[in-house]
């Protein structure tokens, strides 16, 4: 009885096996990729709600939100460092834009050879290894009393963020047709007025994007904040570091989650603000 059934089913089975052979490796690769990307994130999420979790248990023994309470308790540093991080980021954005708007505008209207040289010069701080640079800055700041101050950390972040700010601002201003400015001058607007009425509003989406970049860079920055700010100024990454180094994975995970929020918001906003034609001009 079984033999005829098997022989009858054979062609269909063969197709099924072939289908399986086609799908299985692909599914495995996709699954592995998903695990590599989302595995650590999932682990982080589980840690934020784990009360007790130790080897050899694959999953936490108890779940709960008590660590959230500890992180946001008045004694915990989380709220304080969140405020510090965000205010440092806001000052950094203000400082970078104050430099990047005139610099980007000048670069956008300059002749090409000189322009590329200057744009390259803004990249220089990125070319050197971070650590020795920041150690030296810390030593210098210590001598002039800037170490351990918010201003010191902001200055370090501004140098770091200026690359993005200037490059994107230059691109945003190049995307504004010179004739639009001249049309305003022609009708009686002073240079500054034409800039405020025409150039700035038209470059605003690009400038907005550069501000967001700088904001996030400042929020995530660790090395400079560590050498210049710690221990007097505690930002979220510094808190994350000390929690992680102390083996307190719950606090580290909750802090990391807090840092994740602006990054995701950023992705959504950038998609809205950064037009392709502005991006295409970066570095031109």
């Amino acid at each position: 009885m079984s033999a005829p059934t098997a022989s009858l089913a054979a062609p269909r089975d063969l197709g099924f096996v072939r289908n399986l052979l086609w799908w299985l490796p692909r599914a495995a690769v996709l699954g592995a990729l998903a695990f590599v990307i989302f595995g650590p994130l999932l682990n982080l999420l589980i840690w934020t709600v784990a009360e007790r979790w130790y080897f050899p248990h694959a999953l936490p023994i108890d779940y709960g939100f008590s660590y959230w309470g500890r992180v946001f308790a008045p004694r915990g540093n989380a709220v304080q460092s969140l405020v510090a991080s965000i205010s440092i980021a806001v000052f950094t954005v203000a400082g970078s834009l104050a430099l990047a708007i005139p610099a980007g505008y000048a670069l956008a209207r300059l002749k090409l050879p000189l322009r590329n040289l200057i744009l390259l010069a803004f990249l220089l701080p990125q070319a050197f290894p971070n650590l020795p640079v920041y150690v030296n800055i810390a030593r210098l700041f210590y001598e002039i009393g800037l170490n351990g101050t918010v201003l010191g950390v902001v200055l370090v972040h501004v140098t770091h963020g200026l690359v993005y700010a200037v490059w994107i601002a230059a691109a945003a201003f190049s995307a504004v047709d010179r004739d639009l400015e001249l049309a305003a001058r022609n009708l009686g607007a002073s240079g500054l007025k034409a800039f405020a009425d025409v150039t700035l509003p038209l470059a605003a989406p690009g400038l907005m994007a550069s501000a967001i970049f700088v904001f996030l860079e400042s929020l995530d920055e660790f090395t400079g904040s560590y050498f210049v700010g710690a221990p007097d100024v505690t930002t979220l990454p510094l808190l994350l570091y000390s929690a992680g180094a102390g083996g307190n994975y719950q606090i580290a995970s909750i802090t990391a989650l807090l840092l994740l929020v602006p990054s995701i918001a950023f992705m959504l906003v950038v998609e809205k603000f950064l037009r392709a034609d502005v991006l295409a001009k970066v570095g031109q």
Partner: protein
Amino acid sequence: MSDDAYLSLKDIDAGYGRTRVLEGIDLMIGKGEFVALLGASGCGKTTLLRTIAGFALPSAGSIRVGGRDVTRLPPDKRGMAMVFQSYALWPHMTAARNIGYGLRLKGWRREAIAARVAEMEALLGLGGLGGRKPSELSGGQRQRVALGRALAVDPDILLLDEPLSNLDARIRLTVRHEIRALQQRLGITTIHVTHDREEAMVMADRIVILDKGRIAQLGTPEAIYTRPASAFVAAFMGAENVVPLDAACSGHRVDIAAGPLNRAAGLMLDRPAPPSGRLEARFRSERLELRRLDVQSAADGGAIELIGRVEAVVYPGGEWRHTVRIGDGSVLVDCPEALPPGSDVLVRVPASGLFLFAAPADGPAGASPSAADENSPARERLTA
């Protein structure tokens, strides 16, 4: 400097870096006059307009408006308004805000601006479109918004940088007349840059023909059309047929010896003849007489007669256009009747339609631009 010149340019030189775009431009424009700057692309006409507007500073020379030296003034202090080739409308403002911008700068009250904008919209047929952004307007509407923006401030001088070149051919013809009528009604001194000969002819009081950064000729449309000062101007004004001739000239008289390509002729010109020797004869395709070589004609002198052979005949409408080979070159001849290709013919060019110039020193005159020669520089200039 004459007193009636409202805008006067004196010895203007301008350029980018080392390339000189304009050399020694002298130009006097009266109040209320409409002047067209006509030339091929790259002749410097747009540079000249931008120098007048103050977007570029001349390297030498002076610009005066109503007796006031404006050479070094920034563009916002010159009282001029320009309509850009690209219109340069501000995309983040509505049509009404675009038109009212210059008035806002002057500190007009909001109601006064609204009234003036409404007036401009009515004048230019833009009623009901004031709330739209430039991206929501058609090409013709944008052009009118740009014109309205310039006219709203009641400028001393209106500068037009090829404002019609981005319009459909059909709309262009009506807009020409609209702009001209508006300019005459408002009496605004206007400078119009164009590469379109007909556009310049129908719109302008006077035409300035520019060639390689210099003024090639300056005059009324009729004067330039009927009395071109150089071979370049003649070619630009449509006299693209060119034939080399040997002639003995004195005063207004030109005697042409019989040659393999032409019969002997004696002409009296209404202007002084060029020096004797090798000449370049230019003429248009119209108002010519074309007949078979063996047909006798009763016509007397006062014309040159060229011997050639019909190569091709086409009908572009109106008259038949013959391509007639004469020696190494060929000319285009319009004629009411078609002669078959291969016919030996005589092309009769009356003295009134004939422009004679000394042949260029370098090479034979036959090598200079000719209408039938597809690769000729003149043809490129005209179609560019």
